[in-house]
C-alpha cells in the first residue's frame, strides 16, 4: 500500500470505530447531530471538497458530487424527520471509500503483478575495461561492443556469442520452460537468462532496438489501443451518470407533485427524496469503467507471460471472434528445413546407406547434401572418399572405401543404366547405387512441426470453423500436408501476391462477424499479415518486419500457441462480457427496486461497491492462462 492508501485506511478505521461507538451513546437532538458529524467529516471531507470544486468547474455529474449530494441529503432527511438516523449516510460514505481504496489497491497490485510477469528489463550491461568488469547502463552500449554476461544474469542486448557456451533460460520471452543451449557463433537475444557459463557477446543492436526493449514497449502500449468494449463502456458511462441523475431529479419531484395535485394525497416529500438519493448512490459507473480495461490489461499480461504478445486490446477482442484460420505452410506448419524423412528399398542398414551417401556428397554444400550429412550426424572423414565427380543436375559419383558409389536423382540412375524404384512419398528422392547395383533411396522433405496436427485439432475445439493453408509449394506436396493435418482447404502454387488475393477472397466470402486470422512466419508474408482481420506472426523474434506487420506475435514457433492465443482471448472477452452484463444488470435492478422503495441506501451502496469489487476480482482472473 502506498502512503495515500494507508492514510485512507486509517481514516476508514477511525470513522468506522467512531460510528460503532456512537451507536451506543445515548445522546439525542442537536448534540447527536454534531457528534455524528465527526465520523462523517473524517471519512468524507475530501469528497465534499472535490464535489464543491466540481461545481465550481461546472463538472456536475462526477461521483464526488453524487456521493456528496446523496449523503448530505440523507442527513438532511434525518434532521427533518428528527429520526436521528445518521448512520446510513455515514455508512454510505464509508463503504464508498472502502470501495475506492480496494479499487486503487487492486489496480496497483495488478499493475505490479503484470510488470513482474514481464520482468525482463535488464538493469545493466557488463563491459570489460582494462581487465575489469564495469556495470554500465545498457542504453550507453554501442553496436559492436563486447559485453560479458555472467551466469544468473539477463542478456541485456541482442548480439552474437564470441566466447563461451551456456544454457539459456528463455521462458520469460517464449513461455517455453525447456532451456536452450548456446555456444560461440550463435545469435543470442536479450531477455534470456544465462544459466551456466560465462558468455562474451558482441552486440549487434542498440538497447532500444533489442528484442527486450521492443517487447516491453509493445506490451506496455498494448492497452492503449482500446477495444470496442472499452469504447462502449466509456460512451455508456458518459450517458449513464447524467441519465440517472435526471431520473433521480424526476423521482424526487414528479411523484409527490402528482400525488399532491393529481390524487389529493399527502406529498410524502421525504420518502421520494430518499428514493432519489438512493438513485444517486447507484449512479456511479465505477465498476464498469475500471473492470473492463483491467480485464484486457490482465489478459494481455497473461498472454505475454505465455509467450503470446498481443499488440492491443482491440486485437485481443478480434482474436476472440476468429472463425477462420489461414496458415502459411513453410515455417508455420512445417519446419522450413529439409530433413531426411525416409529410407526405402535398401538391402543394407539405414545408417550404412546414409553413410555412403553422406561421404559421396561430402564435397557439396547443396542444401540436400547438407541434410544428408546432418542425418549422418558424425564427422566426415574425407580421406575415405576419392574420385568425386559431380554431374550437374543429376548427382555425384565417388569412390568410398574402394566402392563405387552413385548418389543422385532419377536421371543419374537412368544415365548409369541402373534400375531404380520410385517413391510414393513427396519430396526430393536421392537414389543410391553401390558398385553398380541399386541400394535404395533416401527421401528428403520439409517435415511437419511436431505439434502441427495437434494444433489444428486444438483450433477446432477452440471454436475455429475453417482452417485453410496457402503455399507456394507444388500441389502434390501441399495436398499431402493438408491431408495429414486435417485442414479444410488448401491453395497451392501461389506467389506472395496471390496469397493476398486469396485472403481477400476469403475475407469477402465470410460474414462480417466471423474474423479471419492469418498465421505466417513473417518471411515474405507481411502484406498478408496486414490484410487479414488479424495477423499472427510466429517464431518472429528478431524479425522486425514481422513484429511490425503482425497484430499478435508468437514468441516461439510452436503452432500450439495459436489455439492458446485464441483461448486466452476468449477467456478474457468472456470475463469482459460477464462484467458488463453483471454490473449493468445489478445496477438496473437496484435502480428499479430503489424507485419502488424496496431498496434502501444500504442496498444501493452494495450495488456500487460490491459490484465493483466482484467485477475487479473477476477481471483479475484474465491473468491466469496457464491451464488453457
Amino acid at each position, binding site marked *: 500500500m502506498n502512503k495515500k492508501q494507508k492514510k485512507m485506511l486509517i481514516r476508514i478505521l477511525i470513522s468506522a470505530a467512531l460510528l460503532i461507538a456512537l451507536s451506543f451513546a445515548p445522546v439525542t437532538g442537536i448534540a447527536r447531530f454534531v457528534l455524528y458529524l465527526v465520523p462523517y467529516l473524517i471519512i468524507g471531507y475530501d469528497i465534499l471538497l472535490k464535489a464543491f470544486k466540481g461545481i465550481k468547474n461546472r*463538472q456536475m455529474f462526477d*461521483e464526488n458530487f453524487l456521493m456528496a449530494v446523496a449523503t448530505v441529503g440523507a442527513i438532511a432527511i434525518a434532521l427533518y424527520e428528527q429520526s436521528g438516523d445518521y448512520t446510513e449516510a455515514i455508512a454510505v460514505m464509508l463503504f464508498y471509500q472502502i470501495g475506492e481504496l480496494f479499487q486503487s489497491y487492486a489496480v496497483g497490485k495488478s499493475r505490479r503483478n503484470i510488470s513482474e510477469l514481464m520482468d525482463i528489463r535488464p538493469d545493466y550491461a557488463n563491459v570489460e575495461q582494462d581487465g575489469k568488469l564495469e556495470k554500465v547502463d545498457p542504453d550507453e552500449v554501442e553496436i559492436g561492443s563486447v559485453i560479458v554476461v555472467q551466469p544468473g544474469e539477463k542478456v541485456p542486448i541482442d548480439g552474437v556469442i564470441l566466447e563461451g557456451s551456456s544454457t539459456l533460460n528463455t521462458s520469460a520471452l517464449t513461455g517455453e520452460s525447456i532451456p536452450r543451449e548456446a555456444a560461440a557463433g550463435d545469435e543470442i537475444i536479450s531477455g534470456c537468462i544465462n544459466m551456466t557459463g560465462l558468455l562474451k557477446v558482441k552486440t549487434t543492436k542498440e538497447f532500444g532496438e533489442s528484442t527486450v526493449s521492443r517487447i516491453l514497449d509493445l506490451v*506496455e*502500449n498494448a492497452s*492503449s489501443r482500446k477495444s470496442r468494449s472499452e469504447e462502449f463502456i466509456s460512451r455508456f458511462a458518459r450517458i449513464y451518470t447524467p441519465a440517472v441523475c435526471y431520473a433521480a431529479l424526476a423521482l424526487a419531484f414528479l411523484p409527490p407533485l402528482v400525488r399532491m395535485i393529481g390524487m389529493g394525497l399527502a406529498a410524502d416529500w421525504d420518502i421520494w427524496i430518499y428514493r432519489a438519493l438512493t438513485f444517486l448512490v447507484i449512479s456511479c*459507473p*465505477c465498476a464498469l*469503467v475500471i473492470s473492463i480495461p483491467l480485464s484486457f490489461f490482465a489478459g494481455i499480461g497473461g498472454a505475454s507471460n505465455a509467450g503470446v504478445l498481443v499488440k492491443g486490446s482491440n486485437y485481443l477482442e478480434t482474436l476472440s471472434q476468429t472463425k477462420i484460420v489461414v496458415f502459411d505452410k513453410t515455417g508455420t506448419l512445417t519446419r522450413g528445413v529439409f530433413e531426411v524423412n525416409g529410407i526405402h528399398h535398401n538391402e543394407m542398414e539405414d545408417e550404412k546407406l546414409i553413410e555412403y551417401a553422406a561421404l559421396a556428397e561430402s564435397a557439396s554444400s547443396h542444401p540436400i547434401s547438407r541434410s544428408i550429412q546432418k542425418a549422418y550426424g558424425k564427422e566426415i572423414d574425407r580421406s575415405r572418399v576419392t574420385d568425386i565427380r559431380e554431374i550437374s543436375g543429376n548427382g555425384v559419383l565417388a569412390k568410398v572405401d574402394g566402392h563405387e558409389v552413385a548418389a543422385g536423382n532419377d536421371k543419374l540412375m537412368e544415365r548409369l543404366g541402373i534400375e531404380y524404384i520410385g517413391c510414393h512419398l513427396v519430396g526430393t528422392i536421392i537414389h543410391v547405387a553401390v558398385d553398380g547395383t541399386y541400394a535404395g533411396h533416401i527421401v528428403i522433405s520439409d517435415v511437419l512441426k511436431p505439434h502441427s496436427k495437434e494444433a489444428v485439432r486444438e483450433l477446432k475445439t477452440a471454436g475455429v470453423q475453417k482452417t485453410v493453408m496457402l503455399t507456394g509449394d507444388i500441389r502434390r506436396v501441399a495436398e499431402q500436408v493438408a491431408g495429414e493435418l486435417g485442414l479444410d482447404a488448401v491453395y497451392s502454387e501461389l506467389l506472395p501476391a496471390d496469397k493476398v488475393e486469396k485472403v481477400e477472397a476469403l475475407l469477402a466470402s465470410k460474414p462480417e462477424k466471423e474474423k479471419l486470422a492469418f498465421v505466417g512466419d513473417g518471411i515474405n508474408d507481411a502484406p498478408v499479415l496486414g490484410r487479414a482481420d488479424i495477423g499472427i506472426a510466429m517464431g518472429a523474434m528478431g524479425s522486425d518486419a514481422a513484429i511490425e506487420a503482425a497484430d499478435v506475435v508468437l514468441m516461439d514457433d510452436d503452432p500450439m500457441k495459436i489455439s492458446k492465443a485464441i483461448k486466452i482471448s476468449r477467456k478474457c472477452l468472456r470475463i469482459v462480457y460477464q462484467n458488463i452484463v453483471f454490473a449493468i444488470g445489478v445496477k438496473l435492478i437496484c435502480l428499479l427496486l430503489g424507485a419502488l422503495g424496496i431498496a434502501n441506501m444500504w442496498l444501493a451502496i452494495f450495488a456500487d461497491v460490491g459490484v465493483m469489487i466482484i467485477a475487479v476480482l473477476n477481471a483479475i482472473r484474465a491473468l491466469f492462462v496457464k491451464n488453457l
Partner: protein
Amino acid sequence: MKKTYKIDVDCANCANKMEEAANNTAGVKHATVNFMMLKMIVEFEEGYEPKTVMKDVLKNCRKVEDDCEIFL
C-alpha cells in the same frame, strides 16, 4: 508528432474524463489515456508546440479532475 506522458490519476472514470478533456484541447489531434499504465499518449496537430499545448491539456484536465497530474 506523438508524445507519451506519465500521468497520475486515481480512478478509471477520471482517466476517461481526462482523455475527453485532452481531446477537446486546441492543438491536440488525438489523445489516449491508458489508465492501467498511467500514460497519456498525445498526437499533436501540425504547427503546434507540444509544450504549450500540454499546459492547456493539464489545465483542462484539472477542470474535470481536480487532483490529476501530468508529468511534463
